[in-house]
């Protein structure tokens, strides 16, 4: 498993199967695997990882990265994924969200949005943050919901791996715009920033990666902090 900064400078961060088991023990509420390579070979590895993890981890598993069609979704679901996250392919062909939602249900389809600030607004990027589509991220979030996405995974490219806090304004604006749950992703550096994502960003859930991978905090540290701050949390 690897982790990058602003979608670049990718570093090795551990074995995915092992880490999923560890995070499960620590009380993770959900585990998200994103295949950032998204090559034919890496997808086969991902299927194997999902198969192994789903035998011993009994919290929801979301898998994404390079999902191009219904067959990709089906393969991962059969391997043990509970939800599929789509990004680039959905922007190029929004019907993929619709078809996925129709076949597997909205609860199964997570629309992942890689957003980057452009002046006063945010653009949706594709191909792992390499290509600007010029599409407004907020508009895209709304359309994604209309197409049938059951959740939004909102990644701030600007904040990713920086540990300077979540993109609060972006998160809040998306959260206000849609009526499906929004998962804030990118930028967690300490527990208070995670609290802010929930409180100020109005995120329904938060994704934490670097903080955990590099063992700076455990999941229970974070949860205890949020609990003290009055967040209703498992």
């Amino acid at each position, binding site marked *: 498993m690897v982790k990058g900064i602003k979608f670049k400078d990718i570093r090795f961060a551990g074995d995915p199967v092992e880490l999923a088991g560890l995070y499960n023990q620590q009380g993770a509420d959900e585990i998200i695997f994103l295949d950032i390579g998204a090559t034919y070979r890496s997808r086969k590895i991902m299927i194997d990882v999902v198969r192994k993890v789903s035998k011993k981890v009994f919290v929801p598993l979301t898998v994404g990265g390079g999902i191009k069609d219904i067959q990709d979704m089906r393969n991962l679901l059969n391997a043990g994924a509970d939800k599929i996250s789509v990004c680039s392919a959905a922007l190029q062909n929004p019907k993929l969200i619709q078809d996925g939602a129709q076949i597997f249900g909205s*609860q199964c389809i997570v629309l992942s949005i890689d957003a980057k600030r452009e002046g006063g607004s945010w653009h949706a990027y594709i191909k792992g943050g390499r290509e600007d589509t010029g599409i407004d991220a907020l508009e895209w979030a709304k359309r994604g919901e209309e197409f049938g996405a059951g959740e939004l995974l909102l990644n701030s490219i600007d904040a990713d791996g920086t540990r300077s806090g979540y993109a609060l304004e972006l998160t809040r604006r998306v959260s206000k715009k849609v009526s499906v749950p929004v998962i804030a992703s990118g930028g967690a550096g300490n527990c208070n920033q995670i609290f802010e994502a929930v409180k100020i960003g109005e995120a*329904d859930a938060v994704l934490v990666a670097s903080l955990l991978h590099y063992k700076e905090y455990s999941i229970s540290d974070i949860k205890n902090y949020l609990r003290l701050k009055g967040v209703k949390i498992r």
Partner: protein
Amino acid sequence: MIGIIDYEAGNLNSVRKAFDFLQKNSRVLKSLKDFDTVDRLVLPGVGSYGHAMERIKEKGFIDPIKKWIESGQPFLGICLGLQLLFESSQESKGVKGMSVFKGTCRRFTEMKVPQIGWNNIQIQRTTSFLRGIRDGEFFYFNHSYYVVEGEKEAVVAKSNYGIDYISIAKKRNAYGVQFHPEKSGQAGLKLLKNWVERC
């Protein structure tokens, strides 16, 4: 042997994997004749209310399931599998549910729909099913419709998502849970274990 009812509307693997993990034997039931090979039934929930009922009907499962429950044999409905035991749902108007329980399903209106995530349960009465589960324990929910209270005596636990709804129901030896025990970590596994060993 646990039988997991397959009505060809989705993935049964996760329930199966949870039983495997608990070292409880289970098999997938594809047709009526398979019902004789098991002594416990699980009805998982996938897809829409109408579509699921249609598939269950086509497969000829409705009466056998009702008889199974009537005769007090162990049964567990999960998520939509709970809702299908009630009479109807706003999701698919005009479709008749299995009507084991009185009551209907309505769509959430107070909060974000679907409810996707962890929520806690308020236990209304003790059963062997909940042994070792504390009041207020969190489980993983993923649904847009909820069960409106019909028969008070059927309610084992409630949850709140802008409105109170039934999260665990019981009648004879049939339980229905609105959440996904197979996705609810340790608490969920505990519940499944209780169901096999104590119900």
